[in-house]
């Protein structure tokens, strides 16, 4: 169980952000703790590596704690935290590229992928899942991020636009480009 300091008085998020901004760690914990699971899903989907995803979430939360006094609009805490998490993923992917270490993930099979349901031979399904994983890792950090935000984190185009402070049209174009890149990567990996 996650241990959270009990603060029975303050419940609304804006007040919690205000308290956290002046150094109330318990308020910050109340803000962040319920989001750890979703943040892990986000970073895990982008990074495809559990350890890196864990590190990215920790880095994002620490940076949020450190930088929170600079956040002027408390209503934007969630979008702000997500932006930090996505940026932490970008950093992780770039560091990984620089280190030039090829990582072999051992957890390629997603827990939501039900082998019994598809009707295809077991080996074929494993191969397809592996193919998808390899294709996804061909994408650059920005393409991975926008695909995960939209297709896995279920963020609307408008949400993503506000997250990145860019026009919705640009988000749609980037989403379209990322899907095309993923399609190309799937075709390359299938050869």
């Amino acid at each position: 169980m996650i241990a959270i300091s009990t603060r029975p008085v303050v419940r609304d998020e804006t007040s919690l952000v205000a308290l956290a901004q002046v150094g109330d760690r318990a308020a910050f914990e109340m803000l962040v703790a319920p989001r750890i699971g979703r943040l892990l899903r986000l970073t895990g989907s982008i990074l495809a590596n559990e350890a890196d995803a864990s590190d990215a979430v920790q880095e994002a939360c620490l940076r949020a704690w450190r930088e929170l006094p600079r956040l002027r609009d408390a209503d934007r805490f969630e979008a702000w935290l997500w932006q930090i998490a996505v940026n932490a993923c970008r950093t992780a992917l770039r560091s990984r590229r620089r280190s030039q270490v090829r990582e072999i993930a051992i957890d390629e099979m997603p827990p939501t992928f039900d082998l019994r349901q598809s009707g295809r031979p077991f080996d074929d399904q494993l191969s397809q899942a592996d193919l998808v994983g390899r294709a996804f890792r061909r994408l650059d950090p920005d393409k991975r991020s926008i695909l995960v935000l939209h297709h896995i984190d279920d963020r609307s185009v408008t949400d993503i636009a506000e997250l990145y402070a860019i026009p919705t049209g640009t988000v749609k174009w980037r989403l379209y480009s990322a899907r095309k890149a993923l399609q190309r990567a799937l075709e390359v990996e299938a050869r």
Partner: protein
Amino acid sequence: MKNERPPRPDDPMVWSTIRKEPDDTAVEAVWASLSDRLETTPQLAPRIITWPWSPALPGVSRRSPRIGGRAVTTFATVALVALVVLIAAVAVVTIGRRVPPPFGLAAPGLIAFDDGGDVVVVDQDGTRRRELTSGPAVDVRPTWSLDGRMIAYWSVPRGETVARLMVMDADGSHPRIAGTKELGFDVSGRPVVDWFDIAWSPDGRFLAFTGGVIGRPQVGIARADGSGSSLIGDPDLLGQTPAWSPDGTKLAFRGGRADRERGVYVMAADGTDIVRVTTPEQLGDGGTFSYFLPTWSPDGTRLLYSKMVGEQHPAAAVPFSAYRIIVVDVVSGIETPLSDDQAYNDYPVWSPDGSRVAYMQWKGTDPSYSVVIGADGSNRTTLPIPGWNSLHWSPDGQAVIADATDVSAGIVVSSLAGRTMLTIPLTSTVPTAFGAGAASWQRLAP
């Protein structure tokens, strides 16, 4: 193993494969480690927002030496307010008296753009590349003044969280700081604030830009000679992508925090007399981003912008809300659509003489292209422009230039006359944290 048919992005299996659901153990492990690290991670001190907004530059003391005493503080506050009022009054008077330079067609000069964090220029055929800035700072979004004598650009010194609005002469000499903008935060070199627009006043003495931080954008004004900058307008209304009227007395911008407020606004150049020129209406999920990029016609009578109209495109591969290009009469408020297509229509820009409009169009499938249309909706034609990004006219109105969609695409110059396309490649292989390949075309005397 060879697969007969690769999965497609619309196959649910693809996303269920990519989706990584954490289990409770992973969540608790992160939390346990995080709790320990929070103990040793200092929090930044709460910041006091001063007015006028003027973040300190790196290496420059943020505060004056403390003299002490309530009376001194009160006196300083009163003096500061008086100074602001005086500066605003002087600005209004001086801006109002300036005669705007002639608009219309002009000879094309150099093309400036950012590449690898430096500002470079090339001749109009893409040759003779020269770097005007260099060094570790990331310099982006070069924008020529209307007289073609100066270039403004944003510069972010490495590792710092304050972006500098710089102005330099056309040959890259005499760089000076015109204004600053504090970025939301510096995360792995990629700040949250993404609006790095620059709008030169017609007389070349002022620069307007989107200031503020994420969630609180506000129009900023800076003197090109570096003598001061400030945020203007109503801080509660919000304001982005300001554009000068041709006579330099007004600014159009997109603003509005709540649904009922969103739209295109016009205000005096000192931030007063704010008026909405678009009609409020329900715009689906467009939110804050329902209106984009207002720009003035060269004669100052109309505003051009893109507007989300909410229809869903049936053939789109992604969620698709159509945008229209709209011209609105500033006095009457009557809107005239230039595009009624079921498509993304965005990045509209007036031709130098105001006779035509160019904008990007994309229908959810390849290819995208630029549409050039008469300002009255006549003589529609298309130009090949791969990708999707901001457009600019050549000063002679003979070509449209598109910012690079990514570093591999380069900057595209599409000519109206021969329908030819020139690509100016970028030398950098990765974009900076602020993108790459934003272009601007120098305007020379006709």
